[in-house]
């Protein structure tokens, strides 16, 4: 697998000058992923922060072919591009020097919620694409409303903290598991906090024949209410508390890629983030206990399913 130095020397395909907030995880994730592929990559990007901030007409930060058409259909859009690629190649109308790779990008809103159907359809049809979900656990582009990826108890503008309700009242959807159930060749959960984990998984995802899905925890300093410089350090806490386990499922085989030396209590992940501040008031401590229980149960389950293979950088 590639060395950091080599990856850093690869040509940049998402360049600076875009309007993402300082410290936004999205550009870190996508730049790291794109560095792992030497082939041309054609991208369809769902509506969301990444899309809006990188292509304000007449500018574009993309040095790779890119399309945004709508919010819920990145996977369907790539389905069409990839089908056209196969048709034109078969008919001898294009003769690419290197195989073109296809990638769809959506936020958690564009993937867990409004785009779930088109994602599911594309994966079931078996298109050759890597779907990357930039999961920042809410609808950030519209100012931070809840999604089905928002954790229990989190403050969002549609799950505010009030006298009666204390943030989101539901647990998050486990999309990674849903994707595993599609029986596609490669599914992984990762984050930019561990560059090697992310880039190794991206490379595998691009290498498999058929669909691959990467669920990437992508920090949003603005709406997680954290300092812009702390994003990746806080993301690491999601791994150390086992809130966001790093694992992959290759042709049905589960592998955990990171086990913290000492599994930290969930408070460590919650504490630095403004969106969980209210949970530390004495009357809301039971919510933290519930979150801990949930994490423990899922971590145990995952350990039952998986073997361990470190991707430690």
């Amino acid at each position, binding site marked *: 697998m590639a060395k950091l130095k080599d990856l850093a020397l690869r040509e940049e395909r998402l360049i600076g000058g875009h309007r993402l907030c300082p410290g936004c995880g999205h550009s870190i994730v996508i730049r790291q992923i794109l560095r792992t592929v030497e082939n*041309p990559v*054609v991208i*369809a990007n769902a509506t969301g922060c990444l*899309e*809006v901030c990188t*292509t*304000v*007409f*007449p*500018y*574009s930060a*993309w*040095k*790779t*072919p*890119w*399309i*945004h*058409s*709508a919010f*819920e*259909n990145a*996977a*369907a*859009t*790539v*389905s*069409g*591009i*990839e*089908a*056209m*690629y*196969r*048709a*034109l190649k*078969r*008919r001898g*109308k*294009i003769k*690419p020097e290197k195989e*073109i790779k296809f990638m769809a990008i959506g936020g958690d809103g564009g993937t867990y919620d409004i785009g779930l*159907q*088109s994602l*599911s*359809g*594309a994966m*079931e*049809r078996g298109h050759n694409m890597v779907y990357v979900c930039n999961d920042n656990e809410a609808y950030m582009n519209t100012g931070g409303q809840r999604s089905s990826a928002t954790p229990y108890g989190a403050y969002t503008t549609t799950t505010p903290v009030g006298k009666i309700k204390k943030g989101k009242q539901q647990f998050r959807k486990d999309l990674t598991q849903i994707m595993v159930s599609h029986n596609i060749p490669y599914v992984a959960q990762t984050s930019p906090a561990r560059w090697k984990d992310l880039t190794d998984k991206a490379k595998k995802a691009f290498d498999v024949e058929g669909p691959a899905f990467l669920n990437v925890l992508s920090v949003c300093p603005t709406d997680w209410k954290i300092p812009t410089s702390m994003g990746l350090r806080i993301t690491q806490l999601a791994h150390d508390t086992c809130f966001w386990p790093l694992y992959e499922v290759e042709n049905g085989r589960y592998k955990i890629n990171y086990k913290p030396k000492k599994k930290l209590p969930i408070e460590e992940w919650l504490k630095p983030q403004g969106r969980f501040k209210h949970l530390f008031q004495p009357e809301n401590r039971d919510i933290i206990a519930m979150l801990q229980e949930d994490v423990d149960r899922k971590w145990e389950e995952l350990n039952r399913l998986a073997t361990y293979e470190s991707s430690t950088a």
Partner: protein
Amino acid sequence: MGKRVVMTGNETVAEAVRQINPDVIAAYPITPSTAVVEYISQYIADGLIDTEFVTAESEHSALSACIGAAVGGGRVVNATSGQGLALMWEMLYIASAMRLPIILAVINRALSGPINIHGDHSDTMGARDCGWIQLYSEDCQEVYDNILQAVRISEHIDVRIPVIVALDGFITSHAIETLETEGDEDVRRFIGDYIPLNSILDIKNIVTYGAIDFQDYYFEHKRHQLEGLHKSAEVIKSVGKEFGKTFGREYGFFEGYRLDDAEYAIVVMNSAGGTVKTVIDDLRDKGRKVGLLKLRIFRPFPAIGIAEALKTKKVVAVLDRTSSAGAQGGPLFNEIRSALYNEPTRPKAVNYIYGLGGKDLTAEHIRGVYEALERIDKSRKIDRLVDYLNLRE
């Protein structure tokens, strides 16, 4: 040379698609258009065509995939009806704004609710402002001819606009008719090779599609798009002529049937045209000066030609196979009346809503309309500007 064949409307669509042999089809089944995707699937299974078929999981995704395929630089076809077109609505605007030549056969179906599977024009009329060209077809022959011309129109360098070819659900889609189809080679020669433009698969010339336009560009880009749609009229006309020269069936924006010297005219689209023609022949035998303007192109709306053709009539009835809730009559009526408004002399105009949810329109109803037009002419009075045909009140 062409040959005479017997086909349903759906089979006709599929046959035209077989001859086009598009690079990609993405579609989702819905009554009454389902047979189209079934025929095409069979052609692919039998190796008659080598099109990539994206069997999308919804119409929204089907059109999204068509958009993806079209930016990939090849020929793209889709077919749908009613709810399917409604579900595509968001993507219709995006396809036309990206100037993508996509062919969409719409087998007209009434929009829910209540749910209904039969043909009216509420689906395509609901999509009338989406920036697509809309061609309407009276019978299987026109379906076939329109689809072949749609390829040339949409791909023309001055146009690059997606095209809807509409035909009436069941009445045309499921009825068996005789028509003339052309040889595969002749069709291929007529449609020509697809010329890719700004392909997203051209990795040497990197493109960004679908950037965000704020207040400083959106309006200007929209204006370009509107201009392009209006200019497509010239191409529609020249392709219609060339089609006539090549295959012997010429097309314009509309067909006038015994219209030139008519005093009373009916305006319709799609299959009702046939019914009206029968009645006209009958009434003409009795010495009545009646005629028909059967509109083929609803978008871009050929207002000038229509005004020219209708301004000397005494009374005109526009028949809408859709209601435009809360408006002063149907969309066709509003367009026609507006086209006539600035003419120094102009006929009186009334509107009939008919055939919603597949309700029959018979020769008797058309006869009644012509009688009403004569009455209006004599009395110089319009009792009901908007009326309904064959409706229990």
